[in-house]
């Protein structure tokens, strides 16, 4: 990453929020949205710009599930483990994904294509069980559907699959 460009980017984000109270979490959200995680050098930069100790920033990053310290895979596969999904077979979807991808929760595949994670509840319990890949939700799944869904992403390697559904918003 170009250091100067990075600095300018962060400065722009921080400036927008600098004068507002309780801004740290909002700034981290912006960073996470841009880079997919919060790189260490970015935390250093925020610390300088906001004049808060680095420990304060790491304290917040490590408390909340949403913030990551490691770069994620190209596609994030999130398995919903809310109650409705759990009852309707979310755990089976997870073990199938673990089996196919060869990774456990919060790990990235060797080729960097998929990152597997568990989420609490996506708020679409009527479609249980669901998984979410990048911004797109796949509902009412059976274990056997998983391989088809994943193959869309592997085949087009790098290109988002479009065509079904409407909320195709994921971008690598």
């Amino acid at each position, binding site marked *: 990453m170009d250091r100067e460009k990075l600095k300018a980017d962060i400065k722009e984000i921080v400036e927008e929020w600098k004068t507002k109270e309780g801004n740290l979490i909002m700034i981290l959200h912006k960073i996470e949205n841009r880079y997919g995680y919060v790189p260490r050098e970015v935390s250093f930069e925020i610390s300088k710009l906001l004049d808060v100790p680095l420990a304060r920033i790491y304290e917040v990053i490590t408390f909340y599930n949403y913030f990551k310290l490691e770069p994620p895979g190209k596609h994030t596969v999130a398995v919903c483990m809310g109650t409705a999904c759990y009852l309707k077979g979310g755990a089976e979807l997870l073990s199938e994904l673990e089996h196919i991808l060869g990774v456990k929760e919060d790990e990235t595949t060797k080729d960097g294509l998929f990152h597997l994670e568990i989420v609490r509840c996506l708020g679409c*319990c009527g479609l249980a069980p669901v998984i979410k890949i990048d911004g797109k939700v796949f509902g009412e799944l059976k274990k056997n559907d998983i391989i088809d869904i994943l193959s869309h992403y592997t085949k087009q390697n790098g290109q988002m699959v479009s065509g079904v559904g409407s909320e195709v918003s994921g971008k690598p």
Partner: protein
Amino acid sequence: MQQKRILIKDTDLKKDRTRDFYTAFLTEIQDKKLEEKVQLVRVSDIGIYGKGLTVRVLPENFLYCDVETGDISRIVSESVVEGRPIEALLHKPDDKQLRLVLRNCGLVDPESIDDYIKHDGYQAIATILEKMTPEKVIEEMKISELRGRGGAGFPTWLKWKLTRAVEADQKYVICNGDEGDPGAYMDRSVLEGDPHSVIEGMMIAAYVIGATKGFFYIRAEYPLAIERVNRAVTQAHEYGLLGENILGSSFKLDIEIRLGAGAFVCGEETALISSVEGKRGYPRPRPPYPSVKGLWGKPTVINNVETLANIPLIMLKGGKWFSSIGTEKSKGSKVFALTGKVKNSGLIEVPMGTTLKEIVFEIGGGGIAGKKVKAVQTGGPSGGVIPEDFINAPVGYESLQKLGSIMGSGGMIVMNEDDCMVDIAKFYLRFCVDESCGKCAPCRIGGTQLLHLLEKISEGKGEIEDLDRLRRISRAMQKAALCGLGQTAPNPVLSTLRYFEDEYKAHIVEKKCPAGRCAGLFHFSIIEEKCKRCGLCFRNCPVQAVSGNRDQGYLIFEEKCINCGRCFEVCKFEAVSRG
């Protein structure tokens, strides 16, 4: 022909069919050259579930269900152009439901402030600013007897009155949209479907307590809700409904949005305050309550999304009208997210006092796959299970509490004979252990110990004394934990123990899981008489625990078997037994 709008909801359809309907409608509209006159909108919630493609034609408000491709041309020519309803497709409303909070969802365009204003939007705040003192508003709220919809049920008027009474240079109002309960999505639907009602509710709260600044705290997992609220706030600012001198009065209010970042404990009000301040979401002891010392040490009112959405309606129709709905102590209606092993899952809204039976069997259509409903879980990880024997219980704060559960924010999960109660208790507890912030020992240590005991029981290594241990630790947590998360975390354990002790005992004494969920407490074998020797189980076993061939039949070797259940699933002749 006047301006028309067609709303279509296709979330009930199989995923590969959704695009077709939108395109088909669009083509039909273009063919009839109606692009200028008709607006076509895809909405995510219209309040009807499991009825295929749902279509609403506005302004006539015709509502059609189970629409097929062949009906599209008729809908456009008869209903849109000529303004006539098509009787055969009309939705027959279910009179058990009462839509107060969800009144605008699916009816009002959530992205248009004009549309909201057309439906009596911002009428309540206008009337209040014109001729009501804050005391008068509190009086009206007291008559309505509205109680907090976040779960605890604290009277809203009292919360406002206490905060109003405190002298301070700055006060705040916060909308709690941190819907963390897994299996519930009431707040998401309201924020996405009717954000202006919530803003209006916040304005009324702010006017009453004397706040000039408001915050929405919304889960980051709800991007559409954030987007809609953001737009609604901007629109309200543009229309002079937020900012200085609102509607020509001296009342001023600014609203900003703050996002959660995936922490269940942040639904607790003191933890939520820390999080809005940009810090770790640690709770702190109460008192002082937020009404005295809240956000940045200033008096703060925190109301749940659903509570706020009720307020404009109460002020428009009067407290007396509101209190005529519901039971003696629980007034108004409640939105529930009915999910789990039930035929029609979805968001429902019923008057307080409706029985669980009416909800599960009449609105929900009963259990799936013809299986017997075993229990209903309410209140998420802070609630408990209510067994089928008590299904005639009415919903209300006190009535559910008496049964060892709570009203909670509105999750309602139906469970059947395939669900193991020890497993359910373990599921909720694992959630609370993961989400415990670790600040106080009863929650941090107690939760972990409870979870260990439950794991031990579900692995078949439990002792009968463990049941007492579970109860003792649970009671200690209820008494000593710092915040609501820790105090209520043992509820799922206690309520399953209360009603399903037999099931726990089966795990401990007989080393059996009656529901067949706890791996390790059952094993698989092949029933020779039913086996057709197809070899599917043999080919699918991941650890080669099935041996044999098509001539001699197959056997499962227990020493090798990992209880994954693959053979059981793939067998087409029910020839693999699990027990």
